[in-house]
Structures are given as C-alpha cells and as structure tokens.
C-alpha cells in the first residue's frame, strides 16, 4: 500500500525570485495525482523539493510522520528509498548499459545474488517492454526507450511513492498512450502513490484520480479529477481546456487592461466539453483507488456537461 505525502505551506524561491508560495496539499495514499501548470511555474522544482533534492524556504513535507525538510542527510538517504522518480530524460547512467542501469539500485542497496538480480531486472524490463535491449547503452536508444528504462530503474526497489517528471514530453501520441496505460496498470499492481507532473492536457484529463494546478506562484486548485474538470473557475477551466481566453496569457499572466478589453468585447469562455471516462487498467479489474464515473459530481451535486462519462465508442 502506498504512503500519503502531506505538503504543508511549502514556499520556495531562488534568490530574490519566488517560485511558488504556500503550497498545501495531500497526495492521497495509493492514488494517482497529476500536477499541472503553465511552463515555468516550477513544477519540476516542486518534484525535486518533494524528494529533498532542493530545500524549501519554508513549510514541511510529511511522510510517515517524518518531516522531510528537517531530516539529517543520512536519514534523508534512507527515506528516499521509498521514492521512485522518473526524470525527464530518464537520467540513465551513460556509462552503463540498460541492464546495469536497472540493476544498479539492487547492487548498491541489497546483497542479492546475481541470479536474483537478474530475475528482478528481467521482470521490470518486461513490464516496460524493453526485453532484448539490455545490452544497449543509453546513447544508443531513443528518448522513449530511455524513459521506459528510467521507469524500470525507478521501480526496481518497489517504491511506495512514484514521481513522474513530464512522462509525455518528447513522446509521440501513441507512445504517450502506452505510457499512460502503463502508469494506470502499475498503480493497479503496486498500489503505490503516484504523482505526475505534466502539461499534457490529455494525460491530465484521463489518467489521474486527483488534479492540482499551479498558477502564478500558488496552487490554484487541488482535488478529485471530476471536481477540476467540472470547475468553472476561470484559470482551471482555461488550462484544462487549452484555450486562449482566460486569465493566462502568453507571458505568465495577462494584465488587467488586456482582461478588461477581453470582457468588454464580450468574449466569453466556451462551454465545458464533456468529461471523458478515466483510463482503466488493461486487464479490466478495478484499481483500489478507482471511483465510479460521475460519482464525485453526483455526491457533490455539481452539474457536469452533457455527454460526460459515456462509454467511449471506438471510431
């Protein structure tokens, strides 16, 4: 079973330049969460802060009643074994082949005999569909394969919390779809807590149980997927539907004059599109954290756009 991560009042700045302030959210144990935000809002910084690679200015990160920001370095290295992180480019060790990369954490942290190591590594490589590429060096394979190899390495210590830094950047739509399916399947099999940092709208709309949106240095909203997808809050609505009309401009934020001009011209946000069903595990059995389509909207009495939660009809 995964571990919940409770972030409280987290604030980070680089010198005089603030990144974000007062982030407070809880990643529920065993659920998939997505963190969205326009480019340059510090999503990757948040992810690195979560695993203790960067120190926040203020605030705390609670995992199993331990505040990650206060831990001495030696203990921090222990707690980090709970995490598996997929970095943007996979962050494979360039001097080792794929097999050694995936075996690396096992060889460093355990005294498993080489036969056991081989069994675990083969299992993880099969999971990400990389059997047969073990002998290749990271420089010899495509970006998508590097990403999947990075994922296999992140999974090898059976982490309780798995973080993905833009799993879909630089991948074609088909590979992205496969990777998204893999994420959902992994969550079903491991029950770990997942956090995906991305700005791919399709991933954000269909994969997670929860969505968070960072905007203009603060957390605009964090909650169940259906809450954000049915939200009429302008920022959330604009971003989740990839529209130009709304408070987010080409630069960080539209200025007041621009927005006034927009509303004076009578421009209004287009209606919300239907909410798709959530991606389900490929073997058809439900995930532990799965909820029925439309359940949140019905229990909270929130109207949702017509045509939502329909069974997808293959075209």
């Amino acid at each position: 079973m995964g571990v919940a991560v409770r972030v409280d009042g987290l604030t980070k700045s680089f010198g005089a330049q603030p990144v974000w302030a007062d982030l407070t959210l809880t990643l529920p144990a065993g659920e998939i969460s997505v963190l969205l935000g326009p480019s340059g809002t510090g999503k990757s910084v948040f992810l690195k802060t979560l695993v203790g690679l960067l120190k926040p200015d203020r605030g705390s990160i609670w995992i199993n009643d331990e505040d990650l920001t206060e831990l001495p370095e030696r203990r921090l290295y222990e707690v980090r074994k709970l995490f598996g992180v997929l970095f943007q480019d996979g962050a494979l060790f360039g001097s080792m082949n794929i097999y050694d990369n995936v075996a690396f954490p096992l060889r460093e942290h355990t005294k498993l005999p080489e036969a056991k190591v081989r069994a675990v590594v083969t299992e993880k490589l099969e999971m990400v569909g990389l059997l047969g590429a073990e002998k290749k060096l990271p420089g010899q394979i495509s970006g998508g394969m590097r990403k999947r190899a990075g994922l296999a390495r992140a999974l090898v210590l059976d982490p309780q919390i798995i973080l993905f830094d833009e799993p879909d950047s630089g991948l074609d739509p088909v590979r992205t779809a496969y990777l998204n399916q893999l994420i959902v399947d992994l969550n079903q099999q491991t029950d770990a807590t997942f956090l995906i940092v991305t700005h791919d709208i399709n991933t954000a709309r269909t994969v997670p149980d929860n969505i968070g949106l960072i905007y203009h240095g603060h957390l605009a909203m964090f909650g169940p997927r259906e809450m954000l997808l049915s939200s009429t809050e302008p920022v959330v609505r604009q971003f989740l539907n990839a529209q130009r009309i709304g408070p987010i401009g080409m630069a960080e934020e539209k200025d007041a004059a621009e927005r006034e001009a927009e509303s004076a011209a009578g421009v209004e946000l287009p209606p919300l599109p239907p909410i798709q069903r959530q991606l389900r595990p490929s073997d058809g059995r439900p995930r532990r954290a799965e909820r029925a389509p439309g359940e949140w909207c019905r229990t909270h009495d929130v109207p949702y756009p017509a045509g939502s939660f329909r069974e997808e009809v293959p075209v």
Partner: protein
Amino acid sequence: MSTPVTTGLQRSGDFFAFGVDVARSVVRRPFQVRELIQQAWFISSVSILPAALVSIPFGAVIALQLGSLVRQLGAQSFTGAASVLAVVREAGPIVTAIIIAGAGGSAICADLGARKIREELDAMQVLGIDPIQRLVVPRVIASMLVAVLLNGLVSVVGVAGGYFFNVVMQGGTPGAYLASFQALGQLPDLAAGEIKALVFGAVAAIVASYKGMNAGGGPKGVGDAVNQSVVITFMLLFALNFVITAIYFQVVPQKGT
C-alpha cells in the same frame, strides 16, 4: 545582500563545506574499490605520457641554463647537484600539479558536470546513494595516488633528461653528474616533493568535483565549469606550493647552511 564580496565568501564557504563532506565520506563504508581502481587507471592513462613529455624538456632546460654559467665558474661537477635540486624539489611537484589539474582534473570535472546536467546525480541521490561517497571520494583518492606516483616519474624522467643534455650535448662528465647528486639535495627533498604531490592531487580532484557537481545551465555550463576548475586549481596549487616550500625550509635544516 549579494555583493561580489559576499558571493565570493559564500562560494569559498560552500567549497570548504564540500571538502569537509568529502573528508568525512572517506571513512564511510562501503568503500568503492572498483570505482577507485577504474579512476586511478583512467587518470594515469591520461596523465603519464604528457607528464613524461613535459618533464624531459624541463630537465633539459635546467641543464642548458646552468651549463654555461657553471662552466664559467669552473663548477661543472656540480651540474648534477643543481639539476636534482631543481627537479626533485620544484619542477617535479609543479609539473605534477599542471598535469593533474590539466589532464586529470578537467576530465573529472567534465565527467561529473555531464552527469549533473543529465540529472544522473539527482537520480543517484533519489536512489538513496550519496554521489560524494560513490563518485567523488574514489576520484579524490585515485588522483592523490596517481599524483604521488606521477611525481616519482617526473623526478626520474626530469633528472634523466638533464643527464642526457649535460653529458651528451654539453660534454659534461657522467661520473661527476651522478656523484654530485648528494652535494645539495637530501632525502627529505623527495619526501617533501611527494607530500606536495599528495596535497596537489587531493586539491585538484576536490576542486574539479566541486565545480563539476555544481555545473548548471546545459552543455555550456559544463564547459565553463571545466575552464574555471582548471584555472582555480592552478592558482591554488601554485599558492600551496609556495606555502609548503616555505614550511619545509623552516622545518628541515638545509645542507650547507
């Protein structure tokens, strides 16, 4: 807040803290023997040939410079003494410093810098492995080891080069060259040279690792880091060389005084 002075002080403080981290990690288990052997092999493979090639002309230049002057004074039999003194005491450690910083240090810095910008170091930390213990400590020890051996090599090749030029080119007496070895030089000179080399090896590797692990801003950042690391190492090593020499002269009594 961040004037150039405070930034400079902060960097120095960071570097010092990094050095302390490295020193503390040296004694921490498990010790990375494999990485140490690989690195020692790598550093020696990039440094042995240039070190030998630099020390031959170094010995030769000393022989040439001294040769005519010494002949005018009628002290040809002391050329060997001067050569040994210059090579073992000064040229050896200086050549070692230049090669270790230029060949070994730049390679270490480029390697760690590339790992830093590819997020390999972050990945390693997230996998629960301390890059200082896993990568930096073996490199520092390897660099110290190779520096000590390199200093021996440079001394031998330098003196041999001096011998060749003195005897073959300038018509010096072979016996006199060899016999005067002990006239000015003494055994502690060699010990001091080796201690210098040990310190230089450590400083070069620590500076290179520090710069590499703090590289930022893509491939250009790595290039900048390598450049800075070589320049900083040179300055530190020449300053250290002066300090150690000054202490040596105070501590060990010299011949003929």
